[in-house]
């Protein structure tokens, strides 16, 4: 080991670093599809990095690399040892390290997206890891899910209800989902998507762009 490296443990106040966006939600709801879409849409105008948290393999990272939406080196996979929610909420060390590694290697970056391993309705990101978070549900889980609530549904900065194309097939009522989500979320936004039908995810990308602008324009003293 050679001596006198740069000391790149970041200060926690967040000044001068990328916006960190968490993408969480149950298994298979479309998190990776959304991350891929955001990279495709925002990539040309945004300096990006992605961290994935697969449960068993590096599948999500491999998928994103194969999709060619982002230079493969800008995608890091974190292993979470049986507990995907621990890695985004209680012990965020490995994820934070991956985010900072990306910023150190490729920085300055504008946006680092952290995709959680698929988990349950209580899994949310620590504010120490994610500045903003999106919770992705899918309609095939049943239109009762927003009513069931849980911190992911109620507190995420943006709730995305994906796979609306499947609603007729599973008998899900999108109106019920919108009403129940509004009831537990107050003013916080909800967007319905079908990434299959509309891979540009225009509404979600627009929401992320607004967050990016607010982040880059925030006062210096703010965290």
């Amino acid at each position, binding site marked *: 080991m050679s001596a006198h490296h740069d000391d790149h443990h970041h200060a926690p106040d967040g000044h001068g670093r990328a916006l960190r966006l968490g993408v969480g939600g149950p298994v298979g709801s479309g998190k990776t599809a959304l991350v891929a879409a955001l990279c495709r849409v925002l990539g040309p105008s945004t300096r990006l990095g992605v961290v994935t948290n697969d449960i068993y393999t590096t599948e999500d990272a491999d998928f994103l690399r194969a999709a060619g939406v982002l230079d493969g080196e800008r995608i890091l996979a974190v292993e979470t*040892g049986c507990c995907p929610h621990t890695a985004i909420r209680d012990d965020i060390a490995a994820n934070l*390290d991956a985010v900072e590694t990306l910023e150190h290697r490729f920085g300055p970056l504008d946006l680092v997206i952290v995709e959680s391993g698929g988990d349950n309705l209580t899994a949310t990101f620590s504010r120490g890891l994610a500045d903003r978070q999106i919770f992705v549900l899918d309609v095939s889980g049943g239109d009762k899910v927003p009513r069931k609530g849980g911190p992911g549904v109620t507190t995420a900065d943006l709730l995305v209800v994906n796979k609306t194309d499947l609603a007729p097939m599973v008998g899900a009522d999108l109106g019920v989902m919108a009403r129940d989500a509004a009831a537990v979320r107050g003013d916080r936004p909800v967007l319905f998507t079908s990434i299959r039908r509309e891979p540009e995810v225009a509404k979600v990308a627009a929401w992320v762009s607004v967050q990016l602008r607010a982040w880059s324009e925030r006062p210096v003293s703010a965290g």
Partner: protein
Amino acid sequence: MHPALLLLTDSRLPAGGHAHSGGAEQAVASGAVHDLPSLSAFLRGRLHTSGRVATAFAAACCAACGAARAAPDAPPGTPPWTGLDAEADARTASPAQRAASRIQGRLLLRVARRVWPAPALDSLALAVPDPHHPVALGAAAHAAGASPGDAALAAAYHAVTGPATAAARLLGLDPVEVHRLLADLAPDLKELASLVSGPETAWAELSAHSAPALDLLAERHARAAVRLFVS
């Protein structure tokens, strides 16, 4: 025992430890660990080999923070981090185990610098940004106000609790029985911590026990296509 040690050894310490099994996942995958008696043997073996080395280094690094023995070209009072870390490296044969130890060391160092800010931790981060875990643990223990003996106890405890929890999850073992195994190891933990030598000990004299089976498990784990734990 200093109360800060409770924080340093708590599995809820947000320093990334939950994602490491210390070879237990591969031991389970290979069938070597499959029930409580085989887990007990695994833990005892781990404690008295790599655990023993970790114990010696955590104590030595904690003591080095207290001693005035400075690195040759560093400001006075700077512990000889690169030398100590190289000694730990030389005792870790498996590259996968080195990597696992260094990532855990780096994450612990990050947490410790925020929780117990101290010049010794800053100098460690500057000299070795990703130190071996026992090196970081010794430095963190000193920053938290604990003694070398405390640091040793924490290292010994860390050597067995992570693998025990991982095995409980992977095999669906009764968690109370797994904790009974850990409790049975208490005399061994105490013994290891008491073996720790003083700050005047030459580094070459520090424990150099090895466990080839753990090295092989670590290497196999790093190459496994499917795994839950980092190591």
